């Protein structure tokens, strides 16, 4: 199996879609001539032409709105919004239109749109390009929220996103584009709502998604040296959420720590913690803990940025305090 980057895995999925489904087209800021701000679509304009790969003005609400219209009219648009922070300019289109049309039309209208954006921090992009707002989208019924952690996830989940008949928010992690992993060359699909058991353990479950899966994995390695076997769960999608997978793991280890880049207060980790205590209270041997980012706008300085993000040693210390 070929070892490719997260970026390349995404490219493979997009190329497959463009090659195999005439309804698919891409649009977004700088995705054409420039090749995308993270170079995911580099070369696509030349390969597929400007009918399939469209550069747009900096007007997120319009771009998403046009995408929703195209999807309602029978096409399969993929809209790229560069950074998740910019998606807030399109939030009305996403929350008030894309998420609701299927329901409000009594199923007569589908909105098969894939909206890609980059979230997470660690690349020194400053507070306006470095946040983790996935819980805002996951809060809204009617949209799916996908958060790939590995190149394998990135390709397989993006393939599945194009199969979906309704809007998918596909959040890539800025710090993972260059990360590498084994990815099959052929097309494959990773189902939504099914977490990956990233590492097996018996003492504590570290629940992560996107970038935090890797922090949790590194922490698990450190913990193993101290005799604590941590299980790492890679959620892959926040909505749908693999509640059964989370509960199964917690019922095995009896302890859980949710790791996320997001702010702690009101973050998605709180949702998971609530679900665990509601449904697995009697299986808990310790309180469910969160290892989240600090409640501040992301600093630009590299060291301060790292200090604001959850760190491996913090996960290790939390785990030791529970076991």
């Amino acid at each position, binding site marked *: 199996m070929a070892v490719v980057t997260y970026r390349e895995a995404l490219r493979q999925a997009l190329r497959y879609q463009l090659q195999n489904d005439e309804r698919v087209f891409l649009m977004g800021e700088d995705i054409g001539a420039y090749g995308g701000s993270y170079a995911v679509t580099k070369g696509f304009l030349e390969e597929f032409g400007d009918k399939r790969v469209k550069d747009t003005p900096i007007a997120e609400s319009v771009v998403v709105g046009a995408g929703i219209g195209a999807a309602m009219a029978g096409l399969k648009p993929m809209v790229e919004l560069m950074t998740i922070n910019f998606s807030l300019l399109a939030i009305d289109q996403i929350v008030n239109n894309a998420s609701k049309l299927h329901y409000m039309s009594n199923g007569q209208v589908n909105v098969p749109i894939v909206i890609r954006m980059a979230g997470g921090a660690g690349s020194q992009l400053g507070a306006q390009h470095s946040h983790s707002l996935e819980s805002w989208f996951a809060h809204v019924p009617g949209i799916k929220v996908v958060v790939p952690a590995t190149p394998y996830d990135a390709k397989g989940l993006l393939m599945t996103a194009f199969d979906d008949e309704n809007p998918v928010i596909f959040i890539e992690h800025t710090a993972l584009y260059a990360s590498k992993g084994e990815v099959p060359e052929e097309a494959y699909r990773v189902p939504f709502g099914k977490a990956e058991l990233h590492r097996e353990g018996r003492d504590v479950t570290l629940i992560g998604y996107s970038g935090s899966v890797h922090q949790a994995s590194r922490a698990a390695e450190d913990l193993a040296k101290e005799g604590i076997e941590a299980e790492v769960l890679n959620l892959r999608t926040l909505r749908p959420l693999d509640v059964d997978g989370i509960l199964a793991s917690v019922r095995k280890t*009896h302890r859980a720590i949710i790791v996320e880049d997001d702010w702690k207060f009101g973050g998605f980790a709180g949702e998971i913690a609530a679900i665990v205590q509601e449904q697995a*209270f*009697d*299986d*808990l*041997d*310790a309180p469910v803990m969160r290892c989240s980012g600090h409640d501040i706008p992301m600093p630009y300085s590299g060291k301060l940025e790292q200090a604001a993000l959850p760190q491996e040693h913090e996960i290790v210390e939390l785990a030791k305090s*529970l076991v």
Partner: protein
Amino acid sequence: MVSEVVMPQMGADMTEGTLLRWLKEEGDSVERGEVIAEIETDKANIEIEAFESGVFRKALASEGDVVQVGEVIAVVAGSDDDISKYDGAAAGAIKQPIATASAAAERRPDGALAAPSEAATTSAEMPERAPEPAPPAEVQQPQPSVSEAAPRPTNGRVKASPLAKRIADERGVDLGSVRGTGPGGRIVKKDVEQATTGAPAPAPQPAAAQPAARAVERPAAAAASPAAAAPIEMSKMRQTIARRMSQSKREAPHYYLLVDIDMTDAMALRKQINESTTEDERVSVNDLIVRACGIALQRHPAFNVTVDGEQYVRQPLQNVCIAIALDDGLIAPAIIDAGNKRLPAIARESKDLVERTKGGALKVEEVTQGTFSITNLGAYGIETLVGIIQPPQTAILGVGTVMEQPAVRGAQVVVRQMMKVALAADHRVTDGAQGARFLGEIKGLLEKPVSLIV
């Protein structure tokens, strides 16, 4: 002479006590028998007396400390005696700054207790509310050493993880007896598992066998509905009652003998006595019964016995306990040497005992040295009361109300004041025929009450 004052054990299941108050300061002289401290146990506040005269040289525990049974809490010695070996020593105290006074106050009964001068001393036994059985593990489990013991809140709440609680519930482990090794002293899964290792895990209780008390207090255990009531931790006193009553029902094969006693003459005698005596010697129905039991126990010593495993001990004194209802439970302190006490003394002492039980100031021997018990719900109009034996005693007399009933006397139906009593006795050490003779003695004494005052 150096004399160590240790935390006494008031009952077989007491493992620790709280030092409430020192009544002496270091340097005070102490007479043998003088009260030097007040301690709180699960059941009552008790005064500790000095065993030797001397000087109260050193207090090793501070007020509010929780001390394991048997730990030295003070040293009484001559003023010149060398007590340097106690320097730097401290009783294995678990510091508990939470106000013990309020805990004690909560246990004090309110006006719900009928005055002792009423027809019968208010007392209660609750056989129908047999609490959850104490696990075998508790008996076998070594007491945690003091230095390792994790702090436990005095409010009776045990800090345990939900999983530990579930496992303890499944295995019938009393979390109060488990030492928590988790963060902050939390009892976690492995603590409960270790507590049950080596002890046979009791078979799951069939639902029908679940005691009523548990069904009342812990409905949430079975109910998945979030609207179901939450389980409530038992108070320390409730836990103690639960343990002791379960132990009794588990270990002592009870047999029961019921009889009606004609109290007409006894009631008349009581009336006469009370018309010609001082307030504090006024006699209650219960006092008459205590007196009758005291005499009957002298004549039938088989019922004045304590049981310890496969041995039993005939006790020299008839220390008759009277069950006294409190807000959250009951306590049955003893009238010491009731067999040799005349009615006025019994009347005085039973009133005093009720008062001191309310005030939480019982003496050690009153709580630990009972040999027989009386439980009386006559004041509540209960007709028949079948009690549970207080371990390690052998018998308990349940007493109902005195009520007018038709009775046949010489081919005539007449109205008599009748009282139903039930003797519950331990079949390991006594048999039914013995019980019948013993109960007949009590009946005879009460029906010819002049025998109670001569």
